[in-house]
C-alpha cells in the first residue's frame, strides 16, 4: 500500500495531464465540443422520463431530476468498470514500452468520469431552484456518498482490470451483468414502490449502487436522512476490495505484458 501512495504522488501530474488530454480528445472531433458533457445527460434524462411517464405512466416527485441523478451516478460506475475490463489491452502500446503502475490507468478513467459527473451534478444544482425543490442541510450528505461511490468504483475496477487481462471475453459478460445491475438499481423507477416487499429492501441494502443512488436522491430532492450505518459498511467493503485490488495488481502487473 505504501507503493500505492508513493505512486499517487509520483504520477499525480501524469494522471492530471492524461485526464485533461483524454477529455479534450473525446470532444475535439465533435461540432458541439464540450457541450456534449451537458447535453448527453440531459438528453438521456428526457429519454428515460419519457419512458417512465408516458409509457408506464408512473412518476416520482421531481421525476426528471430523479432520473438525472440515477443516470449520472450509474454512468460513473458502469463506464469506469466497463473500461477497466479492457484497460490493459487498450493501453497495450504504452504498457509494453514503459513502466506505469496499472491502477494509474484506472485513476485516469475515474478522473475523467468524475469530471463528467461533476458537470452533471452542477446542472442539478442549477435545476433544483428551477424545479422548486426544497433545500435542506441534508444536501451535505452527498459528500460522504461521493467518497464511498469513488472508493467502491475503484475497488471494483481494480478487480476487473486484473481479471480482464486473463479472461479475454470477460468484457462481454460484464456488459450483461452491468445491464442487469442497471435495472436492479432503480435508475428510472422507484425500487421501494415498484418492487414487491421483501425484495425491494434486499435490493436496496445488498446492491450498493441502489443504496448510493437512493442516498443522493434523498439528500438532494427529498430532504431525507441517509442510513449512515449501511453507508459505512459499503465504504468499508469498498476499501477492502480496493486494497485487495491494488495488491493483486502490484503483484501481477508486470506479467500483464507477457500475457496480452
Amino acid at each position, binding site marked *: 500500500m505504501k507503493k500505492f501512495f508513493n505512486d499517487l504522488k509520483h504520477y499525480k501530474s501524469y494522471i492530471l495531464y*492524461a485526464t485533461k*488530454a*483524454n477529455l479534450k480528445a473525446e470532444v475535439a472531433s465533435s461540432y458541439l465540443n464540450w457541450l456534449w458533457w451537458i447535453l448527453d445527460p440531459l438528453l438521456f434524462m428526457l429519454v428515460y422520463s419519457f419512458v417512465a411517464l408516458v409509457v408506464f405512466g408512473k412518476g416520482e416527485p421531481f421525476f426528471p431530476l430523479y432520473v438525472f441523478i440515477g443516470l449520472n451516478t450509474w454512468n460513473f460506475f458502469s463506464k469506469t468498470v466497463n473500461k477497466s475490463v479492457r484497460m490493459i489491452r487498450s493501453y497495450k502500446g*504504452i504498457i*509494453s514500452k514503459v513502466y506505469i503502475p496499472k491502477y494509474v490507468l484506472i485513476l485516469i478513467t475515474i478522473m475523467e468520469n468524475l469530471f463528467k459527473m461533476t458537470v452533471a451534478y452542477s446542472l442539478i444544482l442549477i435545476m433544483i431552484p428551477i424545479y422548486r425543490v426544497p433545500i435542506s442541510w441534508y444536501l451535505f450528505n452527498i459528500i460522504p456518498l461521493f467518497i464511498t461511490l469513488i472508493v467502491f468504483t475503484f475497488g471494483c475496477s481494480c478487480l476487473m482490470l486484473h481479471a480482464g487481462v486473463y479472461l479475454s471475453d470477460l468484457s462481454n*459478460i460484464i456488459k450483461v451483468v452491468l445491464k442487469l445491475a442497471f435495472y436492479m438499481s432503480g435508475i428510472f423507477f422507484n425500487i421501494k414502490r415498484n418492487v414487491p416487499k421483501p425484495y425491494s429492501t434486499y435490493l436496496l441494502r445488498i446492491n450498493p449502487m441502489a443504496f448510493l443512488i437512493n442516498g443522493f436522491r434523498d439528500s438532494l430532492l427529498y430532504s431525507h436522512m441517509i442510513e449512515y450505518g449501511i453507508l459505512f459498511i459499503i465504504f468499508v467493503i469498498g476499501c477492502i476490495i480496493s486494497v485487495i485490488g491494488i495488491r493483486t495488481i502490484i503483484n501481477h502487473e508486470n506479467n500483464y505484458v507477457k500475457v496480452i
Partner: protein
Amino acid sequence: MNAIEVRDLHISYKTVKAQAIKKTFFSLKKSSTEKYEAVKGVSFDVKKGEIIGLIGKNGSGKSTLLRSIAGIFSPDSGSIETKGGNVSLLSIGVGFQNELTGKDNIFLSGLLMGFSKEQIEEKYDEIVRFSELGNFINAPVKTYSSGMHSKLAFSITAVLEAEIMLIDEVLSVGDRKFKKKSYAKMQELIFHEDRTVMIVSHSSETIKKLCTRVIWLNDGVIMADGETAETLKKYHEYMDNQEAIMAKSDKDYWYHKVKVKNNQILLYPTYARYCDDLRYLCRYMLEHCPEWEIIWVMRRKNQKIDIVSDRLRLVLEKTPEYYRAIYSSKIIVDDGVNITREDIKKQTGQKIYKILKGSLGIKDIRKHADAVRKGVRSAKLVDYCISNSTFETEVYRGSFWKNSEILECGHPRNDILFAEEQVKQRIRDKVRKFYEIPEENLIVLYAPTYREKSMLEEQVKNPDFDKLREMFSKRFGRNVSIFLRAHRKDKRRWVGAGKTEGIINVGAYPEITELMLACDVGITDYSSWIYDFLFLGKPGFIYAPDMEIYQKKRGFYYPLRETPFSVAKDMEDMEKSIIEFNEDDYKKKTEEFLDKKGCIEAGTACKSLVEIFRNEMK
C-alpha cells in the same frame, strides 16, 4: 559508479495465456501454466557511461532483459537496480495513445519517463523541430503515417535525454534524410560520457562501431561478457559451430527415427541442362504406379520443375523433411553423384540406383573435375548402375562402380526418341511454336560441352554462325535457324544471338531431349548428347577446334574419328563436311558404331526400370 546492477536475474513467462471464459469453465484441467524461462540467472554491472552491446540468437532473452531493466517486466527472482535518473527504452513500434495529439503524447511520454512538466515544456520546441512534424503535432496521432509515428517516438527519446538508454534494434528511423539525422543524433547521445547505453542488435557492424563492451546471451545465460572484438569472435565461432552440429544432428535423428517405406521412391536430380532421365522416369511412374510415393529433391526453394502433379512430393535439400525422405525411401535414384552431397548412411533394405549422363559419351569421366572424390564415395553407396550398352557397362566398371550391379536396361531419357512418330511430331511442333520457327525452316542445334573459363578464353572459338546458316542453306535448300545452348555453368554469352535473325539462344529451354526432337541437324564438340542424338538418325557434326588440347586435358575413351560424325577443326573443314554429307553413308556408320558399342537402347527403359523397382519393393 555503477548505473545498472543486475543480480541473479530470472525471468519466466508463465504461459497463462489469456483464456476465453468457455475454456476456463469447461475444462476441468487447470489452465496449462507452462513456464518458459527466458532469462536464467544473469548477473552483471554496468558502469556509468558504458556502452554495452547485447548479442545472441533470436529468443536468447535479450529483449526480455532490456525490458525488465526498463521496468516493464518484473523479475521472478533476483534484482535489478538502476541508479540515477530516468531510463528510456527505444524499440520498434511506439507507445502512443492514438486518439491524443502528438503534443499530448510528447508530454505523457515525457512524464512517464520521469521528467517534470517544466522540463518537457523546455524541450518541447526542440522535439517538434527534430521530429519535422510541423503542424501535425496538434493532430491526433492516429492520423499519422507510420513514418511520422516513428519519427515522433524517436525524437522524444532523443531530445529528452534519459540517463540510461536502452535501445532495442532501433538506431535510426524514417526516410533517408531523417535516418541520417537520427543516426547522427543517436551516436551523439550514445557517445555522451555520462550516458549509460545498452544496445540490442543483430548487426555485428553496429556493435563493433558503437560498443565498448559486449554481453553475449544464449538461452537466457551469459556466455561471455567482455571486450567487443573478443566477445564477437567467440559468438561467431559458436554460432558457426552450432549450425554444423544442427545439420548433423538432424541427419542422425532422422536416420534412427524413420523406417524404410516399401513403396517410397526418391529422385535425386542434378540440375544440369542435360539431365532428363529422372524427369521422364518420374512422369512414367506418376502415370503407371499410382500406389507409389514419389519424392523429388529440390536444391533451392521454388525451383522450377515442369512436372505437374499433386502426387509428386517436393522436398528441399537439407531440411528435416529431406532427411526424413532420404532415410525412409526404399529406392533412391540418382542421376549424378548427388547422393554424396550429404554424408548419409544407408538404411538396411534401401537400394540406390545410379544413372550416368554420359552413356556412349567420349569423355573420360574419371578425369571430371571432382570425379575421384565423389565417385569413390558414390560407389560405396550405389547398388545398381543403369547402363544402355556394353560400352557404358565398361565405363562403370573401369571407373568407380566396380562392385555395383549393372542393369543394362537403357536410359529413361531416350525412351521418347523411340516413341511413335505422332508423339515426336507433337513435341517438334511445340518447340517450333515456342520459338516461332516457321515449318519450312531447318533447325540446327549447336550445343558444345562445358569448359572452364580459362579454356574458353584461350582456344575456343565459336563457329561463324552466319556462315553456318549459309552452308546448311546451300546443302539442304531450306532457310536455317540456329539454336544455341551452352552448359548451365558455362559463362559463354552468345554474341549476336537474338540480334541476328535466325540465331536463337535456347539455353532456358528445360529439356535438351525435346530440342533434339525438334532440330534437324546437331553440332557439338565433345558433349555426349550427340550420341543420344544418333538414335534419331538425323545428321550430326562435330566442330572441335581445340581437339588436341581438350583430349590431353580430359582424355577420350575412343578417338573422335571412330564416331559416325565428320570432324571439323575449323570453318573450312566444316564447309567440306556439310557439302560432302552423305545420308546413306552416315546411316551405315551409325549402325556400325552403335553395334560396336553394344547398345541395347530400344525405348523401353522406363518400363524395364519400373519392373525392376516393383520387384525390389516386394
